[in-house]
């Protein structure tokens, strides 16, 4: 379970987060929706301990991510898998080397055969076959890169997976398959997911609960239905762009 309590963060004069509170239940998908510059990515980076708050704290499965550093933080990060906006695959490594990387580095007792079997298993979860193993990231389409990134995030069997703008820049068909992949990770592996997005359609599709972030604070949160009927003027305006099209 992830708990964000009264989280504040500024960069110089720029106050990015202004007292964020939210809870992500175990085994559910929580989407943080918001426009560009609303502080979504900053919030996510606090969850995994890449940033430390000015005030407040984030706990993940009871570990206060804002209070630990060094070896403790390194240890705590093994709870997580993270899928970055641009996939962030290591471009000097093949698909196999990318997905195997966390195992090779952190599970040194595993044999080469075990590593390969695990890599193939996780690629199957995201609907990719063994034929992609020797390929380089530059040879993959945007959707395939995202899938490989998710396979890499899942390979250590994390309890929490964080997705940073997973559908940004993808065509509708690929977006749909990425949404399916997020659902598959939850259904097949029971992971807790936190998704940062500005893609309203995708957010309402995958979310068990969602929050709308505006100007550093949460304007509305709850189930997709609750958020859709929120009275907050920004939320109504933000969502109307998409719901009017339907």
């Amino acid at each position: 379970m992830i708990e964000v309590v009264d989280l504040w963060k500024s960069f110089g004069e720029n106050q990015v987060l202004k007292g964020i509170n939210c809870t992500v239940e175990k085994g559910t998908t929580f989407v943080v929706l918001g426009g560009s510059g609303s502080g979504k990515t900053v919030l996510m980076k606090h969850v995994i301990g890449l940033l430390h708050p000015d005030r407040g704290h984030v706990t993940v499965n009871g570990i206060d991510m804002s209070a630990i550093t060094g070896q403790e933080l390194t240890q705590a990060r093994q709870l997580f898998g993270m899928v970055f906006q641009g996939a962030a695959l290591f471009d000097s490594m093949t698909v196999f080397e990318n997905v195997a990387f966390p195992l090779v580095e952190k599970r040194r007792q595993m044999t080469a055969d075990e590593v390969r079997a695990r890599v193939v298993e996780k690629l199957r979860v995201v609907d990719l076959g063994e034929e992609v193993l020797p390929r380089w990231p530059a040879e993959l389409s945007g959707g395939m890169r995202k899938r490989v990134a998710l396979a890499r995030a899942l390979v250590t069997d994390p309890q929490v997976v964080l997705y940073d703008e997973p559908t940004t820049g993808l065509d509708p068909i690929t977006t749909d398959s990425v949404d399916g992949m997020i659902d598959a990770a939850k259904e097949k592996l029971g992971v807790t997911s936190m998704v940062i997005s500005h893609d309203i359609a995708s957010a309402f599709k995958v979310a068990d609960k969602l929050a709308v972030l505006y100007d550093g604070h949460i304007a509305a949160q709850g189930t997709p239905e609750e958020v859709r009927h929120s009275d907050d003027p920004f939320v109504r305006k933000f969502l109307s762009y998409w719901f009017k099209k339907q």
Partner: protein
Amino acid sequence: MRRFRAAFEDFGELIFFAGEVLAWTFRPPFRLGLVIGQMAAIGVGSVMIVGVTGTFTGMVLALQTYYAMRQLGAEGLVGGSVAIALARELSPVLTALMIVGRSGSAITTELGTMRVTEQIDAMETMAVNPVQYLVVPRVLASIVMFPLLTMLFDVLGYAGGYAMGVGVSGIPAGPFIEHTRTFVEHKDIFSGLVKALFFGGVVAVITCFRGYNARGGARGVGEGTTSAVVMSSIAILIVDYLITLVTVGS
């Protein structure tokens, strides 16, 4: 005043970064494979450019020294002069400057690209320390390869000087070699290699620092690379002066 302060802050961060690199160097796991890979990239890849530069530097040096010495009727001293200039100063400094241009810029560009495409963040989220995985191997490889390439520069530079002095200018081989033996002591060669070792460490830390902290997309990477090459080149000359001051003074 603000730029002055920013420069001081930047220097402080560089020193802190160097301390971090030092601390991670002695912590397991030790990734020997990555160090060897970097030795190949930084060292083996620079053999051609260092070899060519060394050969021509020795030839030019011999030619210039020959014209000066001929006025005094002391052409035989050319071999010794070339060897001592190479061993003490030219080999370590020019080798380092050549590697900065070829491999140093590549280090900054590679790490900078990894930073702006979030590959370094990704590594961190996988509980792998990026300084230990990416920076330490490059620094260790540079510390090993700079002196080795300096030796290559020494040998090919002297060979170039010999070819020009003996082969082209007609200096008798005997005095050319004999004066080299008289002039050049082991400590001259050793001091050059010590300089190269320090240059390797300094250049690797600066170029990695600039790449590791690159911001703002392709433009940021470009600016980081330019800054890394300029800073490294200046640092080489300053460190050269300081080591010379210490070794000559002692």
